């Protein structure tokens, strides 16, 4: 722990509330991590809650080599977007190559069959063709590229009949699952996911597919606990966001490029920037502000980074011939023509707005405390934002040391989202994770296909979005599968699943193990009644399928 962190920790006290020490430890692990593994609660009981919090707030000091080593074998994670685009071209690019006779039809994969891109583009699903199993090998290494004369040189051929197009998404999804289950930097994983939803992009949009890897790796994760303005700026400059919200298609109508292409501004990015990224829907802006902001951001396009057919080589991300040169007024502030600096000025203005502080405080408190965020804490967190110049780490500290965070009302008051449920189950049974098609498919059917949230709102963070009847059935089946050894990629520690003694005694022991508390009389009654109908080895599945375990 750094000196500054020590000082901060010493200056703050964890409020005492009606929760007992085990409950407090499991609460902390359920909120700032993806749930307790065997032994985690004891570790916190030994070292103290503040030490755990401070350690998690400084992820750079946490040794996470085991996970980093594992992830290193997922080759696409390390690649630059341009390299990915060259290796995994859009079906259209392959179609042209085939049409022009530059490559042979047999060399490329089924899913990219010539001139029929609807599988990839239209259905937005990972293919389900025979042999598509990302479990064991094809996500581990990159295919040897095929030379394609006249094209950027190389692209990925099919790998033993497997379509390489979904490899980029599959590796990213696998990595998220591995981090959630196994990373020691749990809060960083939680916050990276939080910001991904806040600044959502949809990986099923074909043009965005090869951009999301770098987006999460270079834009979101490094800034996840830093200054909000840095994060906001990095997102605004990212090809992934520009493509997803069409800023790439936004041209000043009187500019040379706008005229040549017969295009004008596209307001999508400007609107979501205000509505979702900063001010919030009631944040006091008008349609006119959106239009003017869109003019400010004309020229912020990935073409200027060297992407796309019209790519101009690596640039600074700003394309002057597309930029509206007129004067603009946003939120009452005048923007004199000043190239890319107009956008920076607007981002400053938005980041400094009190409505932004409130929106971010509300969302963070909703994530860490309650679906219905306590007003007093929201205010306090917003104040921290303003006072610290948008320091995310300090906002989190305000939350983690608040009495609302530790209140009995907050305890187990949140529904686990699918990723939280899946990761916390795997952690609870003492297993690592070997990501595979079934597991990722479970997340998809539970309603949270990773990186595949279509609308810019990101995935919901309130209970009612996640408890549909199809979803509950899947949750229960998942608990059964994880315990009964029928879930590929999960190997439960058998010792963790069993307990000695009579049925009531075993139920108590398992409740302590998985819920980290003594079951209430009412809960014990339900468990005993349920236990009558399942074989002994499935008892643990009841604890993991119970309403108590759907909550965090």
């Amino acid at each position, binding site marked *: 722990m750094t000196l500054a962190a020590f000082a901060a920790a010493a200056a703050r006290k964890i409020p005492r509330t009606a929760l007992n020490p085990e409950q407090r430890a499991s609460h902390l692990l359920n909120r700032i991590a993806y749930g307790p593994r065997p032994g985690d609660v004891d570790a916190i009981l030994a070292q103290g809650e503040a030490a755990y919090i401070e350690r998690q707030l400084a992820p750079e000091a946490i040794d996470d080599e085991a996970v980093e080593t594992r992830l290193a074998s997922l080759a696409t994670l390390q690649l630059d977007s341009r390299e990915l685009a060259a290796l995994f071209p859009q079906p259209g690019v392959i179609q042209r190559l085939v*049409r022009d006779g530059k490559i042979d039809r047999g060399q490329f994969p089924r899913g990219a069959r010539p001139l*029929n891109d609807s599988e990839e583009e239209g*259905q937005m699903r990972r293919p389900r063709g025979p042999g598509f199993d990302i479990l064991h090998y094809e996500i581990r290494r990159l295919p040897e590229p095929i030379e394609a004369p006249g094209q950027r040189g190389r692209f990925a051929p099919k790998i033993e009949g497997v379509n390489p197009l979904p490899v980029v998404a599959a590796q990213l999804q696998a990595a998220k699952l591995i981090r959630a289950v196994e990373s020691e930097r749990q809060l960083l994983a939680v916050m990276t996911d939080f910001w991904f939803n806040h600044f959502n992009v949809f990986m099923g949009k074909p043009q965005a597919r090869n951009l999301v890897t770098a987006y999460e790796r270079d834009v979101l994760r490094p800034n996840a606990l830093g200054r909000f303005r840095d994060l906001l700026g990095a997102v605004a400059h990212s090809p992934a966001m520009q493509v997803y919200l069409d800023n790439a298609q936004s041209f000043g109508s009187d500019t040379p490029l706008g005229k040549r292409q017969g295009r004008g501004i596209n307001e999508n990015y400007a609107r979501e920037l205000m509505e979702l990224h900063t001010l919030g829907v009631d944040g006091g802006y008008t349609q006119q502000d959106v239009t003017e902001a869109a003019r400010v951001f004309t020229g912020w396009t990935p073409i200027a980074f060297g992407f796309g057919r019209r790519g101009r080589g690596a640039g600074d991300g700003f394309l002057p011939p597309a930029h509206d040169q007129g004067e603009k007024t946003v939120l009452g502030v005048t923007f004199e023509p000043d190239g890319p600096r107009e956008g920076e000025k607007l981002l400053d203005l938005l980041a400094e707005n009190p409505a932004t502080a409130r929106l971010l405080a509300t969302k963070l408190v909703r994530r860490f405390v309650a679906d219905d965020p306590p007003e007093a804490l929201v205010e306090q967190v917003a104040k921290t934002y303003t006072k610290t110049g948008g320091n995310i780490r300090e906002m989190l500290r305000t939350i983690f040391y608040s009495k609302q965070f530790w209140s009995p009302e907050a305890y187990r008051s*949140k529904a686990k989202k699918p990723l939280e449920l899946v990761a916390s189950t795997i952690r609870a049974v003492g297993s690592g994770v070997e990501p595979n098609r079934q597991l990722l498919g479970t997340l998809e059917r539970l*309603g949270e*296909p990773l990186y595949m949230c279509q609308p810019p709102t990101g995935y919901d963070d309130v209970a009612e979005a996640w408890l549909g009847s199809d979803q509950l059935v899947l949750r229960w089946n998942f608990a059964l599968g994880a315990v009964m050894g029928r879930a590929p990629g999960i190997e439960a520690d058998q010792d963790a699943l069993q307990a000695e003694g009579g049925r009531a005694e075993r139920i108590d022991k398992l409740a302590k193990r998985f819920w980290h508390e003594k079951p209430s009389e009412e809960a014990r009654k339900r468990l005993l009644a349920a236990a009558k*109908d399942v074989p002994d080895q499935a008892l643990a599945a009841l604890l993991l399928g119970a309403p108590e375990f759907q909550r965090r």
Partner: protein
Amino acid sequence: MTTTRRFWLKSSGLALAGFTAAPSFLCRAAALESKRNRILVALFQRGAVDGLNMVAPYFEDRYHELRPNLALARPGKGDAAALDLDGRFGLHPALEPLLPHWQDKSLAIVHAVGSPDATRSHFDAQDYMESGVPGDKGVRDGWLNRYLVAQPQPEPSPLRAVSVSPATARSLSGSAPAPAIERVRDFSLGGGRPQVSKAFEALYGMEESKRPIESELQEASHTTFEALRLVEQVRAKPYRPANGASYPRGRTGQRLEQIAQLIKADVGLEIAFADSGGWDTHTNQDIQLNNLLGEMGQALHAFSLDLGSRMADVLVLTMSEFGRTARENGARGTDHGHANAMFALGGGVQGGKVYGDWPGLSDEELYQGRDLALTTDFRDVFSEALERHLGLGGSGAVFPGYKSGVRRGFLEA
């Protein structure tokens, strides 16, 4: 979750007594006998079907000029000729199974229909058609879910809306329950062993709680057990399509069969969504369309036959994100275009007619000089289905910010 919750709070006594009292689905089924509900089936053709060859304007010389290789021949001119509908338009020959429905007037067509948004991206156009708000990417829910909210039922079945797909489709996602049930046989707990269901039901037999999360879970679990029981009831009888109906192999046929099974089991289904893919025919379109339309035609015919008299309560509506270029391309295919055609099949359909103004195919008449122009907004067709078939008072809440009032009249008023 909001709509079913009220029902369960009211009748939690019944729910707790679920094993001894008559299962509530039986009560519901009895109630349905007297008041059969109307059903809307939405079938999305993903990838943009070529509407100009699905329903060909063979009467236009220009059509044959624009598509020297791909145009369907005028009716009677050879094997692959269009099947005449009204002296102007002709069905693709692979859709022959639909001809009897055209003749008995249960099949109507709306032509030159689509989204006013100019995008030619599958992704954006599907998103807009499913959210029902073209041009606005910020809309979370789908048009069919907003319908469920706009026309609440006092005691909705947990299977009031079903997405016959791996996960709930965008069109049906939102705050009202709309489970994804891809296959009836797979929707089960613990592999369908009754004692596992019994165990989980005991596990979720919580006392009433004031904590929102607890009552939320309790209500959700009640709905879930009810859904499981309903599906179990459906599954109990091996399904045999009636009237000699034979569904084609492949996704469309299988999914329509699931829907027919749910309809006939009287589980309270009102909205079903299914989709099919592969319509993005940039090359060798004739072979692909032949297969795809063949499957769709057989599937719809089988569905109609299977449902028999029950079809009077059902409306099937087909849709696709945009049409394709009026001209064929150099690879015997077509590229991304604009307006398209939709089918409406079922009871209440004023069929045997092609609806919508025909915009023509001359260069000046084509949209941007290349695609079929739009004369009917898809929201007008959807609105007509919701209002006239399902009895929604007005579709304003389903299609926010849109009001044209145009009703083509393909459904009985």
